[in-house]
């Protein structure tokens, strides 16, 4: 039986359905990310788990108990907010101990737990400071410590890294993940940043306009997107319209150029139009390895992205982005050059009929 379960959860504001028939089962200790664009319903779903919103229909169970109608202060759910939400009138230690004090724990117990939490987030030296005396990253670590201090059944993180700068974001997300693993706590992480979701999660729920598009491990979500939305939203993607040339062998025709895919095509008929997708990093210059697809292309544009160089190549009438690692000792082609472009047949995904 799942530890946290959302069954047919729907939320409507007036006539607008914000979350529609949301179903998810989570195991204890699992880290699941809700990923999607703004307005897709991910935060509303999280708020329903926290108890800040009541579902219009459906059930939420936690450890076998129905918590759908329980008020937020009766759920034992820890929450971390994008804006930190530290109490400005309290010191770091008082913030962390707040939940324990209102539960009626003795001052010795509170002190002991606060010190433990301060150690966990490496803020022992800041116990007597007020929130305004801390940096954003430190404030969010206090928020994490405060949420964990009450030993919550579930930890909910509502875009906790969005307000931080890039470097702190990367280090703090690793810290959050390490702490979550160490404590074995069940966590839901809401983000619109695909890199964050891919790097931190056991599973990702990709959402769009209130519905689940796909649930899977980061590997599955990235490499085998089930819908065009997931393919487009997670990672960079080249898409193009192709024609089924031979359903039995996976042969395709792209602007008259023959390609072959490992994706299932036996459901299509010869001549059917399909949308294909290729990740930029799955394309390469042909001279290195022999691949199933080697086609002629012309270099249209080159963009330097640091560790990666993005080359725009024209295959047939379609422009594709191709990512290669930046190696200053290997020459990269110049704009206008002709080149042989290659990709494996597994790299060509079929997103569905056009």
């Amino acid at each position: 039986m799942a530890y946290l379960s959302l069954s047919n959860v729907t939320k409507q504001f007036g006539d607008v359905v914000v979350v529609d028939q949301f179903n998810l089962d989570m195991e204890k200790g699992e880290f699941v990310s809700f990923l999607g664009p703004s307005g897709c319903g991910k935060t509303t779903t999280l708020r329903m788990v926290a108890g800040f919103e009541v579902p219009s229909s459906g059930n939420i169970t936690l450890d076998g108990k129905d918590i759908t109608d329980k008020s937020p202060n009766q759920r034992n759910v820890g929450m971390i907010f994008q804006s930190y939400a530290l109490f400005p009138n309290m010191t770091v230690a008082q913030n962390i101990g707040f939940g324990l004090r209102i539960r009626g724990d003795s001052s010795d117990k509170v002190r002991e737990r606060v010190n433990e939490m301060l150690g966990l987030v490496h803020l022992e030296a800041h116990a007597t400071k007020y929130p305004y005396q801390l940096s954003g990253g430190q404030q969010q670590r206090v928020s994490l410590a405060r949420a964990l201090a009450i030993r919550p059944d579930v930890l909910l993180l509502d875009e906790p890294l969005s307000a931080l700068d890039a470097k702190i974001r990367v280090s703090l997300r690793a810290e959050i993940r390490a702490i979550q693993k160490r404590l074995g706590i069940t966590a839901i992480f809401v983000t619109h940043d695909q890199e964050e979701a891919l790097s931190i999660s056991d599973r990702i729920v990709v959402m769009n306009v209130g519905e689940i598009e796909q649930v899977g491990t980061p590997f599955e979500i990235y490499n085998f997107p089930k819908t065009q939305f997931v393919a487009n939203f997670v990672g960079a993607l080249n898409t193009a319209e192709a024609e089924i040339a031979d359903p039995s062998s996976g042969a395709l025709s792209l602007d008259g150029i023959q390609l072959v895919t490992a994706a299932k095509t036996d459901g299509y008929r010869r001549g059917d139009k399909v949308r294909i997708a290729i990740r930029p990093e799955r394309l390469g210059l042909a001279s290195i390895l022999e691949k199933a697809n080697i086609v002629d292309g012309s270099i249209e544009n080159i963009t330097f992205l640091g560790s990666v160089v993005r080359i725009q190549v024209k295959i047939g009438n379609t422009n594709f982005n191709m990512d290669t690692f930046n190696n200053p000792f290997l020459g990269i082609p110049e704009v206008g050059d002709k080149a042989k472009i290659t990709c494996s047949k597994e790299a060509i995904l079929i997103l569905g009929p056009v």
Partner: protein
Amino acid sequence: MASSEDRKVAEMSFWARLRKFPFWSWLWLFIGALYFVLPLFATFEFSLSWDPEDPLKAYQRAFEDDKFWETFIFSNVLAVATIIASVILVVPTAYWIRLRLPEARRVVEFITLMPFVVPAIILVFGLIRIYSTPFYVPFTDIRFMQPLTNFKIGTNILIVAGYMVLAMPYMYRSVDTGMRTVDIRTLTEAAQSLGANWYVIITRIILPNIRSALLSGALLTFAIVVGEVTLASFLGVDAFGPYLFLLGQHRAYEPAALSFVSFLLTWLAMGLIQMFTGGQGQAAGAH
């Protein structure tokens, strides 16, 4: 040669500094200050002119009067009662409107502005008209309470209620502005997720974070109540306002002395507010 050039540079920088001096700003500030300070100074000077040999005679006489202390202390008690009742009414109202009923904000703001439109004399006649008749259980002849104006505690309750209405624009605006500086919704949700109920949220999270605004509202309420004449006169309450009014009609120097003392007390209160809220404003602002 070099020294004359230095002098030239120094002269230029003097004129440059003079050009940058905000002359008009200082002039308006000076005129504004005169407008406030001159009458106060005149009052003070007049209060000292009763007896040239004993300049503080007016103050001595005013403080010697038992009625002064009696009414002053009673008005202070009324002010404290009004402040407590206003906080109990206004803080949860403003909080709930910010949290759950933002659409009701305009209506409530309109209601809180009514005391500016409806004069105190209308309010007090309305209060007397309604509460000078006995209360009956609806649709029966059973009387369950005598008129509030018939007994002292009842009248005191009425006057505090009246003062709450008069002070509402100031108290509500102060509290609402205070709540605007903190993220009420997120702090509430954070406290709820940690297990706090509404009482804990209001007393331990909301009130401490709007302390500065509350004190401002309390000071304004205090100033209104201590000097108020209309409600106290018509309800027959021996408060400081009517005492000062009567004194002004019959004496010359003592009212001037008491007015000056009132100013000093107000400034003292403002100073205390600054002292007690100096750090808190910074903390809330930083958030």
